[in-house]
C-alpha cells in the first residue's frame, strides 16, 4: 500500500476524531442535563429525562442518523450533512452518558449531602462542589468506555455522506482493489486512537485518586 493511500486514511481518521470529540463533548453537556432531569423530584422533568433516554437508547443509531438527515430538510432546516451527523451522534451518546452519570449521582452517599446541608451549602453549591466531582469519578470508567464506543460508531455517519475513516477505506479499496491492506490499516488506526483514549482516561482517573494508593 502506497504512502499516499495511508496519508489519505490518516487524514480521514482526523475527521473521525473531530466528529467524535465534538459529539462526545456535546453529549456530556446534554447527558448531564438529562441525568439531572431524570433524578429531579419534578415529575414532568423526570419523565422527559427518562423519555429522552429510552428513545435515543432504544432506536438504532443508524436509523437516528437517517431520520435526522431526512427530517431536518423536510422541516425546512437546511444544514450540512456534518451537522446532521454530529447531532445524531451527540443525542445518542447523551442518552448513554446520562445513564452512566445517573448511576454516579445515585451512588453519592446521602450522608455527604447531609453534612453539606449542615454547613449551609445550597443545592446548587452541593451539586457543583460535592455531587458532580464524586459522580464524575464513579462514572468515569463507563464514560471512557462510551467515548470509545462513539468513536467506533462514528463509522455509521458515512450513511449521511461523511467521508470519515471507514468510508475512506471503502472508497480507496474500491478504486485500488486492495481491500485487505486498506481495511487492516483502517483497523489499526481505530485501534491506535482508542488506545490513546483509554490511556488519556487512565491518566485522568489518576487525578481522582484522592489519597488512595
Amino acid at each position, binding site marked *: 500500500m502506497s504512502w499516499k493511500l495511508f496519508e489519505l486514511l490518516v487524514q480521514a481518521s482526523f475527521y473521525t476524531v473531530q466528529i467524535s470529540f465534538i459529539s462526545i463533548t456535546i453529549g456530556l453537556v446534554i447527558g448531564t442535563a438529562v441525568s439531572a432531569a431524570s433524578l429531579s423530584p419534578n415529575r414532568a422533568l423526570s419523565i422527559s429525562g427518562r423519555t429522552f433516554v429510552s428513545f435515543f437508547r432504544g432506536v438504532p443509531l443508524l436509523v437516528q442518523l437517517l431520520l435526522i438527515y431526512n427530517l431536518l430538510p423536510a422541516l425546512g432546516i437546511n444544514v450540512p450533512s456534518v451537522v446532521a451527523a454530529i447531532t445524531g451522534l451527540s443525542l445518542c451518546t447523551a442518552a448513554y452518558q446520562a445513564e452512566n452519570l445517573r448511576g454516579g449521582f445515585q451512588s453519592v452517599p446521602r450522608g455527604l449531602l447531609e*453534612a453539606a446541608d449542615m*454547613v449551609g451549602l445550597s443545592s446548587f453549591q452541593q451539586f457543583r462542589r460535592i455531587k458532580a466531582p464524586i459522580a464524575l469519578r464513579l462514572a468515569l470508567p463507563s464514560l471512557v468506555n462510551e467515548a470509545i464506543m462513539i468513536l467506533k460508531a462514528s463509522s455509521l455517519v458515512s450513511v449521511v455522506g461523511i467521508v470519515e475513516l471507514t468510508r475512506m477505506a471503502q472508497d480507496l479499496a474500491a478504486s485500488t482493489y486492495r481491500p485487505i491492506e486498506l481495511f487492516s490499516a483502517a483497523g489499526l488506526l481505530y485501534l491506535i486512537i482508542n488506545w490513546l483514549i483509554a490511556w488519556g482516561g487512565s491518566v485522568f482517573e489518576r487525578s481522582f485518586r*484522592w489519597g488512595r494508593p
Partner: protein
Amino acid sequence: MTTPAISVRGLIKRFGDVEVLHGIDLDIPQGQVSCLIGPSGSGKSTLLRCMAFLEEATDGLIFINGEPLGYAPGPQGKPVRLPAARIRAVRSQIGMVFQQFNLWPHMTALGNVSEALKTVHGVRKSEAEERAMVQLKKVGLAERAGHYPSQLSGGQQQRVAIARALALEPKIMLFDEPTSSLDPELTGEVLNVMRALAADGMTMVVVSHEIGFAAAVCQQIAFLDNGKLLMTGTPQEIFGKPRHPRLDQFLDTYLDRGAAMLV
C-alpha cells in the same frame, strides 16, 4: 430565665405508618452538655436529626435559640414551612457530627474544614485556610491538614469532622453517636476533643452509647424508650436510686458488659 438553646415542642415523627417519636417536649439549656440515651430504636437519633431539621417532624416544632427551625407556628395552629434560606440561616447556629463522619472524600482535611467558609461565606481562600488550620490545631490534627479522608484513621476523620463543624462557629453542637463506628482506642481521642469543647462552655447535645461519658461530662441526661421521653435530669438524678425500672433494665445491659463503672 434565659431562652433554651433548643426547644422541642410536641414533636411527633412517623416513618410511613410507624410512629417513632410520640410527642416529645424537651429543652436543651445553654452552655451545657445534654446526652440522649436509650436503647436502639428508642428514637434518640431521630430526635437529634429532627433538631437539625435533617428529618422533618410529622408534627410539632423545634426552636433554636427561640427561632423556629423548618416550620413556624401557623395561624390555625398548623405549622407552616419556612423558606429554604430561612432554614439555612437558623441552622447556621448548629454544627453537626455524624456517626459515619461524612467527610467529603475528594477534599483534604483542610479542604473539608475550609469548604463552607469559601463556598458559603465567600471568605478568601487564604483566610479560610488559616481559620481552618486553627480548628485543625484545636482537634490536634494540624500536621494532617493535607491528608485526604482515606489517609486518616476513623478517630482522625471524626476529629476533622468536628473541626469542620466548629469552623463556622456554631452556638450548638449536635453529636449523633460520634464514637459508635470507632474502636475503643480511637473512641478516647474523640471523647477527649468533646470534653475540651464542653469545658469551653459549648452547648452540646450528644446521642451516645458511652454511658461513662454521659455520666462524667453531661449536665443533663434524657432517657428515651420506645419513642417516649421517660425521664430527664442530672446524672445524679438519672443514675441515682430510686431508678425508673426501664432505665434499670437498660443499665443492666451495660453492667453485664462491664461498661458502666459509674454505678
